[in-house]
Protein backbone atom coordinates (compact mmCIF):
# COMPACT_ATOMS: atom_id res chain seq x y z
CA UNK A 1 0.00 0.00 0.00
CA UNK A 2 2.84 2.39 0.87
CA UNK A 3 4.35 1.51 -2.49
CA UNK A 4 1.15 2.46 -4.27
CA UNK A 5 1.10 5.90 -2.68
CA UNK A 6 4.78 6.53 -3.33
CA UNK A 7 4.67 5.43 -6.94
CA UNK A 8 4.51 8.57 -9.08
CA UNK A 9 4.58 6.92 -12.50
CA UNK A 10 0.87 7.47 -13.23
CA UNK A 11 0.54 11.10 -12.41
CA UNK A 12 1.84 12.66 -15.61
CA UNK A 13 -0.32 15.70 -16.14
CA UNK A 14 0.02 15.37 -19.88
CA UNK A 15 -1.37 11.83 -19.93
CA UNK A 16 -4.13 12.95 -17.62
CA UNK A 17 -5.16 15.78 -19.86
CA UNK A 18 -4.91 13.62 -22.91
CA UNK A 19 -7.30 11.16 -21.29
CA UNK A 20 -9.63 13.93 -20.21
CA UNK A 21 -9.72 15.57 -23.57
CA UNK A 22 -10.32 12.25 -25.34
CA UNK A 23 -13.24 11.52 -23.07
CA UNK A 24 -14.57 15.03 -23.57
CA UNK A 25 -14.28 14.81 -27.33
CA UNK A 26 -16.15 11.49 -27.33
CA UNK A 27 -18.85 13.02 -25.17
CA UNK A 28 -19.04 16.04 -27.44
CA UNK A 29 -19.39 13.88 -30.55
CA UNK A 30 -22.18 11.90 -28.90
CA UNK A 31 -24.06 15.10 -28.05
CA UNK A 32 -23.46 16.55 -31.49
CA UNK A 33 -24.97 13.51 -33.15
CA UNK A 34 -28.08 13.50 -30.99
CA UNK A 35 -28.65 17.25 -30.62
CA UNK A 36 -30.61 17.63 -33.83
CA UNK A 37 -33.12 15.00 -32.87
CA UNK A 38 -33.40 15.75 -29.18
CA UNK A 39 -33.15 19.53 -29.10
CA UNK A 40 -34.44 20.75 -32.44
CA UNK A 41 -36.84 18.29 -34.05
CA UNK A 42 -38.59 17.15 -30.91
CA UNK A 43 -39.11 20.74 -29.78
CA UNK A 44 -40.44 21.87 -33.12
CA UNK A 45 -42.79 18.88 -33.19
CA UNK A 46 -44.26 19.97 -29.88
CA UNK A 47 -44.49 23.66 -30.80
CA UNK A 48 -46.08 23.00 -34.19
CA UNK A 49 -48.65 20.60 -32.78
CA UNK A 50 -49.54 23.00 -29.99
CA UNK A 51 -50.04 25.79 -32.49
CA UNK A 52 -52.12 23.62 -34.82
CA UNK A 53 -54.40 22.78 -31.96
CA UNK A 54 -54.54 26.48 -30.95
CA UNK A 55 -55.75 27.36 -34.42
CA UNK A 56 -58.19 24.47 -34.52
CA UNK A 57 -59.61 25.54 -31.18
CA UNK A 58 -59.92 29.14 -32.32
CA UNK A 59 -61.92 28.05 -35.35
CA UNK A 60 -64.04 25.68 -33.34
CA UNK A 61 -64.86 28.47 -30.86
CA UNK A 62 -65.76 30.87 -33.66
CA UNK A 63 -67.99 28.24 -35.27
CA UNK A 64 -69.74 27.56 -31.98
CA UNK A 65 -70.23 31.30 -31.37
CA UNK A 66 -71.70 31.72 -34.84
CA UNK A 67 -73.97 28.77 -34.25
CA UNK A 68 -75.21 30.38 -31.03
CA UNK A 69 -76.15 33.71 -32.63
CA UNK A 70 -77.12 32.43 -36.07
CA UNK A 71 -80.28 34.24 -37.21
CA UNK A 72 -83.29 32.27 -38.39
CA UNK A 73 -83.43 34.33 -41.56
CA UNK A 74 -80.22 36.04 -42.52
CA UNK A 75 -76.52 35.56 -42.79
CA UNK A 76 -73.20 36.00 -40.99
CA UNK A 77 -69.88 36.57 -42.67
CA UNK A 78 -66.68 36.83 -40.64
CA UNK A 79 -63.00 37.18 -41.46
CA UNK A 80 -60.32 35.61 -39.32
CA UNK A 81 -56.56 35.85 -39.19
CA UNK A 82 -54.11 32.93 -38.95
CA UNK A 83 -50.32 32.77 -39.38
CA UNK A 84 -49.18 31.95 -42.92
CA UNK A 85 -46.69 29.34 -41.78
CA UNK A 86 -46.13 27.45 -38.57
CA UNK A 87 -42.61 26.11 -38.08
CA UNK A 88 -41.91 27.05 -41.72
CA UNK A 89 -44.72 24.79 -42.92
CA UNK A 90 -47.86 25.79 -44.77
CA UNK A 91 -50.98 24.08 -43.53
CA UNK A 92 -54.57 23.30 -44.41
CA UNK A 93 -57.67 23.53 -42.26
CA UNK A 94 -60.20 21.03 -43.45
CA UNK A 95 -63.81 21.16 -42.32
CA UNK A 96 -65.17 18.76 -44.92
CA UNK A 97 -65.07 15.89 -42.45
CA UNK A 98 -67.06 17.93 -39.93
CA UNK A 99 -70.48 16.62 -40.86
CA UNK A 100 -69.58 12.97 -40.45
CA UNK A 101 -66.93 13.08 -37.73
CA UNK A 102 -67.76 16.32 -35.84
CA UNK A 103 -64.13 17.43 -36.10
CA UNK A 104 -62.01 19.85 -38.08
CA UNK A 105 -58.54 18.84 -39.22
CA UNK A 106 -55.50 21.09 -39.14
CA UNK A 107 -52.91 19.45 -41.35
CA UNK A 108 -49.41 20.43 -42.49
CA UNK A 109 -48.87 20.56 -46.23
CA UNK A 110 -45.24 19.43 -46.15
CA UNK A 111 -44.97 17.05 -43.20
CA UNK A 112 -47.23 14.42 -41.70
CA UNK A 113 -48.28 16.52 -38.74
CA UNK A 114 -52.02 16.65 -38.20
CA UNK A 115 -54.27 17.74 -35.35
CA UNK A 116 -58.01 17.11 -35.01
CA UNK A 117 -60.24 19.42 -33.02
CA UNK A 118 -63.81 18.67 -32.00
CA UNK A 119 -66.65 21.06 -32.84
CA UNK A 120 -69.01 19.90 -30.08
CA UNK A 121 -71.46 18.18 -32.38
CA UNK A 122 -72.93 21.34 -33.90
CA UNK A 123 -72.41 20.02 -37.43
CA UNK A 124 -75.35 17.68 -36.93
CA UNK A 125 -77.74 20.66 -36.92
CA UNK A 126 -75.86 23.07 -39.20
CA UNK A 127 -73.84 21.52 -42.02
CA UNK A 128 -70.25 22.73 -42.07
CA UNK A 129 -67.87 22.40 -44.96
CA UNK A 130 -64.90 24.05 -46.62
CA UNK A 131 -61.11 24.16 -46.68
CA UNK A 132 -58.70 26.90 -45.68
CA UNK A 133 -55.16 27.16 -47.04
CA UNK A 134 -52.88 29.14 -44.73
CA UNK A 135 -51.11 30.83 -47.66
CA UNK A 136 -54.25 32.56 -48.89
CA UNK A 137 -54.67 36.30 -48.35
CA UNK A 138 -58.05 36.26 -46.67
CA UNK A 139 -59.93 33.65 -44.68
CA UNK A 140 -63.59 33.79 -43.88
CA UNK A 141 -66.49 31.79 -42.45
CA UNK A 142 -69.94 32.34 -43.88
CA UNK A 143 -73.36 31.32 -42.68
CA UNK A 144 -76.53 31.68 -44.70
CA UNK A 145 -79.87 30.51 -43.39
CA UNK A 146 -81.23 30.10 -46.91
CA UNK A 147 -78.45 27.75 -48.04
CA UNK A 148 -78.97 24.40 -46.39
Amino acid at each position, binding site marked *: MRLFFKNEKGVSSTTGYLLYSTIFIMFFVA*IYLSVNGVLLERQSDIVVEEEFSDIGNMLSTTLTDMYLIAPENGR*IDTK*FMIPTTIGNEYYTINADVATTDQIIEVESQSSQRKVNVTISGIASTVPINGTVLSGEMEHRISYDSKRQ
Partner: protein
Amino acid sequence: MARIIENEQGQWIMLSGLVMAIALVFLVTLMNNAAVTGYHSSSNVLEFPKDDIRDLVSQSRDATSQAVHIAHQMNQSSNQTIPEITTSIIEDFNRQTSLLYASHGQTVAISVSNITTNNASSAFGDIVWLNISYNDGNTFYSSEPEIVEIRV
Protein backbone atom coordinates in the same frame (compact mmCIF):
# COMPACT_ATOMS: atom_id res chain seq x y z
CA MET B 1 5.02 22.75 -5.82
CA ALA B 2 7.74 24.76 -7.43
CA ARG B 3 8.26 21.93 -9.90
CA ILE B 4 4.67 22.03 -11.11
CA ILE B 5 4.70 25.78 -11.65
CA GLU B 6 8.06 25.87 -13.32
CA ASN B 7 7.42 22.89 -15.55
CA GLU B 8 6.82 24.42 -18.98
CA GLN B 9 6.14 21.25 -20.98
CA GLY B 10 2.39 21.81 -21.10
CA GLN B 11 1.49 22.29 -24.76
CA TRP B 12 -1.04 19.46 -24.65
CA ILE B 13 -2.68 20.98 -21.62
CA MET B 14 -3.00 24.34 -23.31
CA LEU B 15 -4.23 22.79 -26.50
CA SER B 16 -6.85 20.62 -24.84
CA GLY B 17 -7.98 23.58 -22.79
CA LEU B 18 -8.48 25.57 -25.97
CA VAL B 19 -10.35 22.73 -27.66
CA MET B 20 -12.66 22.41 -24.69
CA ALA B 21 -13.32 26.13 -24.54
CA ILE B 22 -14.25 26.28 -28.23
CA ALA B 23 -16.41 23.19 -27.92
CA LEU B 24 -18.24 24.64 -24.93
CA VAL B 25 -18.96 27.88 -26.77
CA PHE B 26 -20.30 25.87 -29.68
CA LEU B 27 -22.54 23.79 -27.42
CA VAL B 28 -23.92 26.84 -25.66
CA THR B 29 -24.80 28.48 -28.97
CA LEU B 30 -26.53 25.30 -30.10
CA MET B 31 -28.55 25.12 -26.89
CA ASN B 32 -29.64 28.74 -27.24
CA ASN B 33 -30.60 28.08 -30.79
CA ALA B 34 -32.90 25.30 -29.71
CA ALA B 35 -34.56 27.43 -27.07
CA VAL B 36 -35.41 30.37 -29.35
CA THR B 37 -35.75 28.41 -32.48
CA GLY B 38 -37.83 31.00 -34.27
CA TYR B 39 -41.29 29.73 -33.45
CA HIS B 40 -43.64 32.19 -31.90
CA SER B 41 -46.85 31.28 -30.22
CA SER B 42 -50.15 31.81 -31.89
CA SER B 43 -50.85 35.51 -32.23
CA ASN B 44 -54.52 34.96 -32.76
CA VAL B 45 -56.93 36.99 -30.78
CA LEU B 46 -60.45 35.79 -30.98
CA GLU B 47 -62.36 38.79 -32.23
CA PHE B 48 -65.76 37.43 -33.05
CA PRO B 49 -68.24 40.03 -31.69
CA LYS B 50 -70.77 37.54 -30.38
CA ASP B 51 -71.89 39.65 -27.43
CA ASP B 52 -72.26 42.83 -29.49
CA ILE B 53 -74.55 41.10 -31.96
CA ARG B 54 -76.57 39.39 -29.26
CA ASP B 55 -76.98 42.71 -27.48
CA LEU B 56 -78.10 44.45 -30.64
CA VAL B 57 -80.71 41.82 -31.43
CA SER B 58 -82.14 41.63 -27.94
CA GLN B 59 -82.19 45.42 -27.56
CA SER B 60 -83.97 45.74 -30.90
CA ARG B 61 -86.58 43.20 -29.86
CA ASP B 62 -87.13 44.99 -26.56
CA ALA B 63 -87.38 48.37 -28.25
CA THR B 64 -89.84 47.01 -30.81
CA SER B 65 -92.04 45.56 -28.12
CA GLN B 66 -92.04 48.89 -26.27
CA ALA B 67 -92.67 50.80 -29.48
CA VAL B 68 -95.76 48.75 -30.23
CA HIS B 69 -97.09 49.29 -26.71
CA ILE B 70 -96.50 53.02 -26.96
CA ALA B 71 -98.09 53.09 -30.42
CA HIS B 72 -101.25 51.46 -29.09
CA GLN B 73 -101.49 54.09 -26.35
CA MET B 74 -100.78 57.00 -28.69
CA ASN B 75 -103.24 55.67 -31.24
CA GLN B 76 -106.07 56.48 -28.85
CA SER B 77 -105.45 60.19 -29.20
CA SER B 78 -103.82 60.55 -32.59
CA ASN B 79 -104.65 60.45 -36.26
CA GLN B 80 -101.68 58.23 -37.07
CA THR B 81 -102.12 54.48 -37.40
CA ILE B 82 -100.33 52.00 -35.16
CA PRO B 83 -97.84 50.91 -37.86
CA GLU B 84 -96.96 54.54 -38.59
CA ILE B 85 -96.25 55.35 -34.95
CA THR B 86 -94.32 52.11 -34.42
CA THR B 87 -92.19 52.75 -37.48
CA SER B 88 -91.32 56.27 -36.41
CA ILE B 89 -90.34 55.11 -32.89
CA ILE B 90 -88.14 52.36 -34.34
CA GLU B 91 -86.55 54.90 -36.70
CA ASP B 92 -85.64 56.97 -33.64
CA PHE B 93 -84.24 53.87 -31.95
CA ASN B 94 -82.21 53.12 -35.07
CA ARG B 95 -80.71 56.62 -35.10
CA GLN B 96 -79.64 56.44 -31.46
CA THR B 97 -78.33 52.87 -31.65
CA SER B 98 -76.37 53.64 -34.82
CA LEU B 99 -74.69 56.55 -33.06
CA LEU B 100 -73.80 54.38 -30.05
CA TYR B 101 -72.31 51.61 -32.18
CA ALA B 102 -70.56 54.08 -34.47
CA SER B 103 -68.57 55.30 -31.48
CA HIS B 104 -67.07 51.78 -31.32
CA GLY B 105 -66.43 51.69 -35.04
CA GLN B 106 -69.38 49.50 -35.92
CA THR B 107 -72.19 50.09 -38.37
CA VAL B 108 -75.68 48.94 -37.49
CA ALA B 109 -79.05 49.44 -39.12
CA ILE B 110 -82.47 48.54 -37.81
CA SER B 111 -85.52 49.11 -39.96
CA VAL B 112 -89.08 47.94 -40.19
CA SER B 113 -90.02 45.94 -43.25
CA ASN B 114 -93.59 45.04 -42.35
CA ILE B 115 -96.11 45.32 -39.53
CA THR B 116 -99.37 43.46 -39.06
CA THR B 117 -101.75 44.42 -36.32
CA ASN B 118 -104.37 42.18 -34.84
CA ASN B 119 -107.24 43.23 -32.65
CA ALA B 120 -107.14 42.40 -28.97
CA SER B 121 -109.46 39.42 -29.30
CA SER B 122 -107.14 37.63 -31.73
CA ALA B 123 -104.98 34.75 -30.54
CA PHE B 124 -101.95 36.39 -32.12
CA GLY B 125 -100.45 39.70 -31.13
CA ASP B 126 -99.01 42.32 -33.42
CA ILE B 127 -96.17 41.08 -35.59
CA VAL B 128 -93.26 43.29 -36.62
CA TRP B 129 -90.74 42.24 -39.28
CA LEU B 130 -87.44 43.94 -38.51
CA ASN B 131 -84.33 44.12 -40.68
CA ILE B 132 -81.23 44.14 -38.48
CA SER B 133 -77.72 44.37 -39.84
CA TYR B 134 -74.34 44.74 -38.17
CA ASN B 135 -70.85 45.27 -39.60
CA ASP B 136 -67.56 45.90 -37.83
CA GLY B 137 -65.26 45.50 -40.80
CA ASN B 138 -64.44 41.87 -40.08
CA THR B 139 -67.84 40.47 -39.31
CA PHE B 140 -71.08 41.08 -41.13
CA TYR B 141 -74.35 39.97 -39.59
CA SER B 142 -77.82 40.38 -40.92
CA SER B 143 -81.15 39.09 -39.77
CA GLU B 144 -83.72 39.87 -42.41
CA PRO B 145 -86.34 39.63 -41.20
CA GLU B 146 -86.19 39.24 -37.45
CA ILE B 147 -89.80 38.47 -36.53
CA VAL B 148 -91.04 40.00 -33.29
CA GLU B 149 -94.42 39.06 -31.95
CA ILE B 150 -95.99 41.34 -29.35
CA ARG B 151 -99.05 40.77 -27.26
CA VAL B 152 -100.70 44.07 -26.43
